[in-house]
């Protein structure tokens, strides 16, 4: 069983939900990424989602766009990120790590080379925003060879037939995008999310993580009542940026995750 599947199974037995923070590798600096990953685990993160910066992050709102730009200005690339995961794994062999990014850095490295290197580094899951199931077969095949979970997005606009198509390829969990929009947008519609999650659950037994629009303990609790996992991105990335601007310890930004953890576990 993959680390991600094992993680969801253990949480289910404990009656808890997965808290999945997202940070952009190399933001605010390459040196701070691995310490931040450890700190997030300490504050209660179950799975780490590491953003691979890209020059053209089409699905991101302004907060994460700027984080990608800062990370690229620090010359953060896919190979360097795999090295970070490897370093993280030296002292943490249990917390699942997934990469979230765009197709081209992986295309450039080559699917086979990437899957082998990701496996070797200790990556557990890969989500490529701009590789929908229609285009995913080649990468999916390589990831499967190395038992890396291929995580897919399901959107409010995804119809029944596509949910089935995605469920057939996905492993680990499926990631439901809670709104029509970019990351960091602020119009979460809980009733729609609930309705859509029920529809997804009729087609897959995989756990469902929900992301986009979750920014504080309240929204985290709301979503954790509906889904198996809660993904928080822009709010955390922004908190890290604000701390770094003020010259504070960026690890302090992870307090947001601790607050979410407490609130989610109290439900």
């Amino acid at each position, binding site marked *: 069983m993959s680390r991600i599947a094992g993680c969801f199974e253990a949480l289910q037995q404990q009656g808890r939900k997965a808290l999945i923070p997202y940070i952009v590798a190399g933001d605010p600096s390459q040196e701070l990424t691995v310490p931040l990953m450890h700190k997030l685990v300490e504050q209660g993160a179950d799975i780490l989602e590491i953003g691979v910066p890209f020059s*053209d992050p089409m699905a991101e709102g302004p907060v994460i766009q700027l984080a990608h730009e800062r990370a690229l200005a620090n010359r953060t690339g896919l190979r360097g990120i795999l090295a970070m995961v490897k370093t993280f794994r030296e002292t943490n062999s249990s917390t699942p790590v997934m990469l979230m990014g765009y*197709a*081209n*850095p992986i295309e450039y490295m080559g699917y086979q080379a990437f899957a082998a290197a990701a496996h070797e580094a200790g990556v557990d899951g890969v989500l490529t925003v*701009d590789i929908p199931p229609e285009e995913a077969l080649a990468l999916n095949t390589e990831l499967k060879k190395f038992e890396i979970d291929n995580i897919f*997005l399901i959107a409010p606009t995804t119809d029944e037939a596509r949910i089935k198509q995605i469920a057939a390829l996905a492993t680990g969990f499926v990631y439901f995008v809670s709104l029509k929009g970019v990351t960091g947008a602020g119009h979460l519609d809980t009733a729609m999310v609930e309705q859509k999650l029920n529809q997804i659950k009729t087609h897959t037994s995989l756990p469902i993580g929900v992301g986009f629009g979750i920014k504080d303990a309240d929204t985290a609790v709301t979503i954790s009542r509906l889904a198996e996992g809660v993904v928080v991105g822009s709010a955390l990335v922004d908190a890290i940026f604000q701390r770094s601007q003020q010259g504070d310890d960026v690890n302090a930004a992870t307090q947001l995750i601790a607050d979410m953890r407490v609130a989610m576990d109290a439900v």
Partner: protein
Amino acid sequence: MSSDKAVIDYKAMPDSDGHFGIYGGKFVSETLMEALTELTESYEKLSKDADFQAEFDKDLAHYVGRPSPLYHAERWSREIGGAQIYLKREDLNHTGAHKINNTIGQALLAKYSGKTRIIAETGAGQHGVASATIAARLGMECVVYMGEEDVRRQALNVYRMKLLGATVVPVTSGSKTLKDAMNEAMRDWVTNVDNTFYIIGTAAGPHPYPKLVRDFQSVIGREAREQSLAMTGKLPDALVACVGGGSNAIGLFHPFLSDESVAMYGVEAGGHGVETGEHAAPLSAGKPGVLHGNRTYLMQDEDGQILHTHSVSAGLDYPGVGPEHSWLKDIERVNYVAINDNEALAAFHHLTRIEGIMPALESSHALAYGEKLAKTLSPEQTIIVNLSGRGDKDIHTVAELDGISF
């Protein structure tokens, strides 16, 4: 080799998933997949609908002013002393470039699909102006995304769009040019997908855009083919067109692809020289990758990050290219070459002084290659160069390079 090429059914491309060989496809986030499927279906239906086609043809005739002339540039041909050069006069279209052929087609799709809001990206501003024009005529809301850098370089077109009632949004992310404007338009689309139609300005983007833009622009090649037969009694020996995203080029080339005797040259922006790295020539110096919804040749670094581009012409300043061109390059049906800034500027001046026609800087790249090519051919041979747009918009750029300020 050539007999192998003859059996390719170019009209059957792309396949039903939008692939031209390994290129093209639909590389977008899940939220947009439904909109692309809807667009694919409505286009399949409308492209066979007689009323839709009749309305499109009527607009091309009476609003755009088609057919555009095929003009024999006799004096210029004589000065060059080689092949006869014919210019396909897309510069004479309403709004001054080939862009309007496509925006009319896509705006009709928007109208027939019940969308009320149009968005577009623009580099030089020609596609933005064409979109704002058609939105004004149809009474639709229009938002145009334009890189902050291009807003500065193309102030006149920004004002034209505003006069037409469009909202121009300066894009401050990334390199602040065309590719970033396209990213921002995609973000708008993903947010407002229910009521919004995204009019992509070039033969790139996710399927079905490369196909439908090609189909709408193919009127250029269909006319040119008929005009050539009528005027010279034969097909041209060669076609030349500039390639940024590649919509004017594919529009000229596509109706000739099965004509084996017709050589084709797509001219990319060589900027300061392909060898300097400061250019916008992905087919000449890039590698395949994925950007803006399709797999195609891209200018990228060893981490797969998209590189900044340089060209004197804002309309060619794009790190990717339409996927059909990538495929036509690999199967060797079309030759892709590069022309530097200086060569394009020289051709701009030549055509202005010798024929009294002021070409767009984009088109000047094709003209410069046309000059080179003509010299290698005989006076009995003919070349069609696509004069894709007029140069009025570039007067400031040319003046600045000549050290003149107004």
